């Protein structure tokens, strides 16, 4: 009996010890966290590849110069499965393994709870993709954002609606997610500043298929523009149902969550002419060309939307380690805020909150079955 | 026959849709009696039990126990008043032991609440111990003590019937309703059952009994009530009822008449 008890105990302990314990090798550890597996694995891969390019670049030079010695860079992968709880677990894992900085996470809903752990442990976190303003509004010294914020995107959308589309009647829909509603609310706020009060504002249920009831209600208000905060599956259905079921011709405008080829591939004709706010065409950024070429060579495919952001995030952490000759989170955070950086995305300067100063959003349009950047 | 009735049904009626299962039934059971309730299939016997124990509310009429109405009470409250029953198709708690079954029967007589169960004071342990003693005594009384810790569904058919009786007795009822206790028993077991029922009466528990086996009913009943189509067609001492032509007709059908 006692023997059984002990062996059972041993098995359960062994299970917990299953993963390897951290090695004591002399490296600079950078954590890379995002949805590496599962339905958002494609985004996780962008984070992975971008950071990998940066790390390999530094290692090719022999490593980061720290206290007179060249130290190699080691990347640790953290798969958060876009689950906030996993994110916190990963954060503990990283802190425990002694990471100096973190590239990640991808989703705002994960980055935000994880940032508490990083901040408490004094670990620099640069997210390449979490656009929710709340992340940097928490007042954590250690949090940075290489990408834009939803409110910056909303501002671009609002100005486009007012100045380019010259619309007065705007309907706003969102998918009741952190991202979608955040984007919709920021757009509404900036529209308000420009003197436009949306004639219709409503959430929809993510995962639903039939949005004709709410679109019918919106149609009653004769909107010239329908703005949607959300991601592509709902956007496809919305635009299809607007055009094909209800015969609405209002302009459709949405955010970066819809910048996916499926949007025009599945929605077809219905998507034609839709607008999307997104980052500028990376092919047009001079500084990014090197990374794009290297990525093509290393991985045999084109960069994704967040690859270069991840590259920049990882590079910034490594560069500031070398420049401050320190791995202390407080010094790195201060240094990152202290100056303008020349990066693959052009000049970047962080403000006190950790956000980039310049709004990096422009408007794209679906033309002839592809996305085209408008000037 | 001067004692006040223990159980009294007045004009008790129960309809299921268009079907009249009980039709203005008058029924009296006096203390310390064994009353047999007989009648052909579908006569409304089990329905009468179900209405008395509160499973079905009566469509009309009145049921009083010890002078107070029990109409509208939940079955658990009826049991609390002192009426316990067994079931025609045995309904023991199959996954539990015979002892636990009896202890569930004792449920209504125990006081321990959730907090008591968690804190388990001396009083609670005493109560549990007394309950177990009482339950064991009943298992001994019904003759299945040695199966106390066996799962109910592992017991033989006859033992299951006895376990059900023990479970019902555990609530210290003053009236026990037995629904075909002899069904499926062999003659020897039936003999033991007869004695058990009489012993139950001797403990001071009044028994109202549905039974198809005439030898059991006629052998132990002080009085027999005959139902047909929800109506009482005869009532009296076993011998008188046995000879009643209406009873014969009900049982043997119009072909005989």
């Amino acid at each position, binding site marked *: 009996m006692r023997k059984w008890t002990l062996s059972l105990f041993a098995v359960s302990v062994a299970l917990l010890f299953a993963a390897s314990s951290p090695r004591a090798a002399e490296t600079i550890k950078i954590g890379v966290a995002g949805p590496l597996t599962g339905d958002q694995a494609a985004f996780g891969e962008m984070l992975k590849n971008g950071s990998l390019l940066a790390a390999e670049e530094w290692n090719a030079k022999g490593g980061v110069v720290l206290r007179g010695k060249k130290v190699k860079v080691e990347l640790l992968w953290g798969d958060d499965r876009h689950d*906030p709880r996993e994110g916190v*677990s990963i954060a503990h894992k990283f802190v425990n393994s002694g990471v100096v900085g973190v590239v990640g996470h991808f989703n705002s809903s994960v980055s935000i709870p994880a940032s508490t752990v990083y901040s408490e442990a004094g670990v620099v976190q640069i997210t390449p993709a979490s656009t929710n303003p709340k992340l940097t509004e928490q007042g954590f010294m250690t949090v940075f954002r290489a990408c834009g914020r939803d409110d910056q995107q909303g501002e671009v959308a609002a100005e486009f609606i007012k100045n380019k589309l010259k619309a007065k009647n705007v309907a706003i829909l969102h998918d009741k997610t952190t991202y979608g*509603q955040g984007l919709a609310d920021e757009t509404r706020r900036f529209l308000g500043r420009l003197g436009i009060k949306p004639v219709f504002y409503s959430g929809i249920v993510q995962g639903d298929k039939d949005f004709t009831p709410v679109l019918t209600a919106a149609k009653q208000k004769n909107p010239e523009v329908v703005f949607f905060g959300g991601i592509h599956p709902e956007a496809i259905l919305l635009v299809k149902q607007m055009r094909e079921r209800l015969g609405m011709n209002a302009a459709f405008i949405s955010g970066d969550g819809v910048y996916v080829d499926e949007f025009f591939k599945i929605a077809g004709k219905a998507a034609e002419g839709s607008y999307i706010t997104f980052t500028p065409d990376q092919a047009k950024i001079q500084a990014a060309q090197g990374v794009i070429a290297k990525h093509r060579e290393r991985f045999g495919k084109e960069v994704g939307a967040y690859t270069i952001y991840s590259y920049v995030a990882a590079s910034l952490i490594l560069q500031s380690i070398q420049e401050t000759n320190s791995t202390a989170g407080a010094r790195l955070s201060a240094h990152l805020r202290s100056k303008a950086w020349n990066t693959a995305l052009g000049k970047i300067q962080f403000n006190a909150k950790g956000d980039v100063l310049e709004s990096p959003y422009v408007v794209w349009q679906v033309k002839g079955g592809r996305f085209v950047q408008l000037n | 026959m001067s004692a006040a009735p223990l159980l009294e049904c007045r004009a008790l009626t129960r309809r299921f849709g268009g079907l009249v299962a009980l039709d203005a039934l008058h029924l009296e059971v006096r203390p310390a009696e064994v009353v047999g309730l007989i009648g052909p299939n579908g006569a409304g016997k089990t329905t009468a039990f179900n209405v008395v124990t509160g*499973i079905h509310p009566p469509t009309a009429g009145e049921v009083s126990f010890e002078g107070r109405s029990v109409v509208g009470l939940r079955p*658990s409250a009826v*049991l609390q008043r002192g009426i316990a029953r067994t079931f025609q198709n045995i309904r023991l*708690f199959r996954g539990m032991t015979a002892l636990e079954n009896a202890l*569930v029967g004792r*449920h209504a007589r125990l006081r321990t609440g959730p907090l008591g169960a968690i804190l388990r004071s001396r009083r609670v342990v005493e109560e549990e111990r007394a309950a177990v003693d009482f339950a064991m005594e009943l298992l001994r009384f019904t003759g299945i003590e040695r199966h106390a*810790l066996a799962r109910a569904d592992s017991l033989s058919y006859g033992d299951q019937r006895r376990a059900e009786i023990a479970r019902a007795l555990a609530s210290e009822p003053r009236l026990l309703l037995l629904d075909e206790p002899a069904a499926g028993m062999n003659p020897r077991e039936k003999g033991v059952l007869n004695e058990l029922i009489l012993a139950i009466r001797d403990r001071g528990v009044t028994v109202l009994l549905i039974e198809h086996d005439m030898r059991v009913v006629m052998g132990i009943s002080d009085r027999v009530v005959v139902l047909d189509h929800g109506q009482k067609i005869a009532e009296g001492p076993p011998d008188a009822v046995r000879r009643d032509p209406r009873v014969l007709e009900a049982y043997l059908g119009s072909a005989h008449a």
Partner: protein
Amino acid sequence: MRSFASAPLLGLWFAFLALPFAGWRGALWTGLACAALVAAARTLGRVLRAEPVARRLAMAQEAIGESWEFMLRGTRDWRVAALVLLGLVAFPWVLDRYKTDVLVVAGIYVMLSLGLNVVVGFAGLLDLGYVAFYAVGAYSYALLSTWYGLSFWPGLLGGAALAAVFGILLGIPVLRLRGDYLAIVTLGFGEIIRIVLNNWDDVTRGPNGILGIGRPHLGDFRFSQPMHFFYLVLALCLITMFIVGRLNRSRIGRAWAAMREDESAAECMGVNLVHAKLLAFAFGASWAGLGGVVFAAKQTFVSPESFAFFESVIILCMVVLGGMGSVPGVVLGALILVALPEALRELTLFRPMILGGAMVLMMVMRPRGFLRERGLRLAEGALPPGVPREEGR
């Protein structure tokens, strides 16, 4: 299954079924895998059913069950209790932060599944919306903490109490419903709570969730490290196991079990179904609430997506897998389901699939879970000596 078809035929059949999803190659592999699996399972089955092996297996199984119970009963022998406790207390010193954090999560799940076990395992009420109470606990503490600065300990009680109230609110309308209807209504209830949390922006801040939830304090000591939470959760788990075990082995536990076996017979035997059901709902809910408060305090952040339907399913799996109604079994189930995906991170994509398959397999092969419910529902010591023990239960 034997009469169904031979292994190659079965392989062919499943290859046919998989064709539209897996393509030619995938279907081929599916077919081969199915045929091999069926053949292997049958051979294994034949071996396992052979007398000596079967006996030994039964013994091993018995031993595992007993050793778990022994561990539990060990709490009464102070030496064993001290040993086990020492082992548990030592965990965070042996493990790193991350693994300790995983253990904290596991502990919360242990509490949740023990609570659900009361509803499903003890009382036999299939609740598919259990996560709603978890959410109520988490959000009530999150709101009280961020609005009124309520500290953790009263928050713990408040969260549990509020969840219990919700449990009763759900319980009252569904009292009369049969098992499967109950399952659907509870599922609906769970979804309603999640949808409301996601949409009541003014109060719950909608999908953004609530940030900056207060950490627990003990005097001047502030809980922040996974290790601190480990001890908190460990204590709560032990208390839960103690309370749940005692409830089960009492008049109340017997009433629940009777109700689970046969509702209307239980009612006729004096069990007030209204009380028994509401008590089960309220008790199960309050434990979910407790777990929710701890979760909120550990995470310092709650959002509706943590309380999706799948969460209810996972907790139910823990209960079912471990053995419905058995306290040590449920603890085992919870630990397995948290530890397994950690050990098999690479298989994340397959995890839900494996989980679903395991549920089916479990029901078909061992509907009572790994560990059977055992022991009498009696206070220990209430059974007089000399009661003849018959062939095992």
